[in-house]
């Protein structure tokens, strides 16, 4: 805890003792819960008449962890996840810019249909979109995932950019127009760069969400990390390794996502400093840029 909260005093000796006692109780409860989980999982269990050792037994891990081929497959799965995320991210940004551009068009003929499409895309599940692309366009699973994510996140980024443009002072646009720039030039040269910088934290956070959502490829049949581990490898090595595979997948995902989130946060903090926006003191402590995104 960095800055002291406004919500309570710096604790005195009595409060500190109470807080310590409360902390000890909380930690004990959590530890007891964790211990119960570990104990239950570590019990040997029956599987169709055969007794298998508990999940933390080395025999449950050895075959996977010591098999270089296993790690090759996992690596390939991770690569497939990152690949899909990278391509989808590029598409999402391009689509986002297009959406923002068309949505703020002065011509109603353009604006209204685009708004309807945008609402439609934003309102339905990404998974459904992927499925739609997969079945209707028969693009194969990879492009279903990439295009689905690109389109959906593009719509969200487009809305963020639009909000960014709307928050600019009117003078920016007026100055551009009065210099003789066309509307499009004003938008591309004056408004977009500023909106983009302002919305950078939200856009980056949305890209982290996109990375997370590549896991939906599992359902539409794209061999990304989760499908490789939980489906292909579990079928190959046998179901008794499911727990091990789950733990390995979880650790990989958390490592990748937490790293990306951290980078995002760093960039957001830096861009806030550059803009000279002093961190406002708040009641509940600083928030993540990712809070603007809800998925």
């Amino acid at each position, binding site marked *: *805890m960095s800055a002291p*909260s*406004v*919500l*309570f*005093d710096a*604790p005195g000796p009595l*409060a500190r003792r109470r*807080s310590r006692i*409360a*902390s*000890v109780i*909380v*930690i004990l409860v*959590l530890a007891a819960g964790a211990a119960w*989980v570990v104990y*239950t*999982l570590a019990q040997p*269990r029956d599987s169709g008449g055969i007794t298998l050792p508990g*999940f933390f037994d080395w025999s449950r891990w050895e075959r996977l962890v010591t098999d270089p081929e296993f790690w090759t497959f996992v690596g390939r799965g991770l690569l497939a996840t990152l690949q899909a995320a990278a391509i989808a991210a590029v598409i999402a940004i391009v689509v986002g810019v297009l959406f923002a551009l068309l949505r703020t068009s002065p011509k109603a003929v353009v604006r209204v249909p685009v708004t309807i499409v945008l*609402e*439609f895309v*934003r*309102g*339905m*599940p*990404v*998974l*459904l979109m992927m*499925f*739609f692309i997969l*079945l*209707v366009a028969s693009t194969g699973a990879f492009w279903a995932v990439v295009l689905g994510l690109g389109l959906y996140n593009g719509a969200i980024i487009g809305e963020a950019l639009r909000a960014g443009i709307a928050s600019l002072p009117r003078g920016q646009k007026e100055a551009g127009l009065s210099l003789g720039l066309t509307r499009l030039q004003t938008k591309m040269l004056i408004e977009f760069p500023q909106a983009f910088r302002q919305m950078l934290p939200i856009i980056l956070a949305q890209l982290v969400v996109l990375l*997370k*959502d590549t*896991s*939906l490829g599992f*359902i539409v049949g794209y061999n990304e990390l*989760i499908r490789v581990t*939980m489906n292909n490898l579990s079928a190959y090595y046998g179901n008794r390794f*499911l*727990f091990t595979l*789950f733990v390995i*997948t*979880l650790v990989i*995902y*958390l490592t990748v*996502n937490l790293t990306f*989130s951290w980078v995002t946060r760093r960039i957001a903090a830096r861009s806030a400093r550059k803009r000279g926006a002093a961190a406002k*003191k*708040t*009641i*509940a*402590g600083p*928030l*993540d840029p*990712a*809070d603007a995104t*809800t*998925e």
Partner: protein
Amino acid sequence: MNVVIDNLPLYLEGFAQTLSLLVISGLAALVVGTIVAVMRISPIPSLSGFAAVYTELLRNTPLTLVLFFCAIILPYLGSELPYFWCAIIGLTAYTSPFVAEAIRSGVNGVPIGQAEAARSLGLGFGQTVGIIIFPQAIRMVIPPLINVLIALTKNTSVAGAFFVAELFGVGRTLANANGNAVVAVLLAVATFYLLITIPLGILAGRLEKKFVVQR
């Protein structure tokens, strides 16, 4: 089109299932999320630490993995819950950190002077949060919370792909059975989702505007 009309009862069943997933896990996530948010701003370091870790871990885990946890690991731990409740648990767990963060952002929307004034009047943590901050924060919290619920609506489709025959599951079955009418089948599914998400979105927008004017 005929496929859709013929299978309307199936669609409605799926829609009802989606709605019940949404309502139950939405309410549960609101409760859990509020508790986590209060823990996060509380004076007890272990509570706020736990809340921070909980938020960070769950937010960085894909929903697919959370549902895998419910489908595979929970039975290992001795749960014998039907799939519907597994889905509820997964969706609740996945949504609650977003609720917590939305609440925190609402609390941050209350001017800090309010908290300072309450504290300088001698109110304690519980009183400050309970009678001064939360009543004001709640209106700022509602629009972002509705957005969280919209996201939850869309996320129920993932649960459907896993185990529950809700809208997406129905759509998938029908699309596989009627290869010649895939577009119609899936557009109908999308329409049902939009029936939930678009009104909620409009509501969120309205409330946001209303509350901005009031401040």
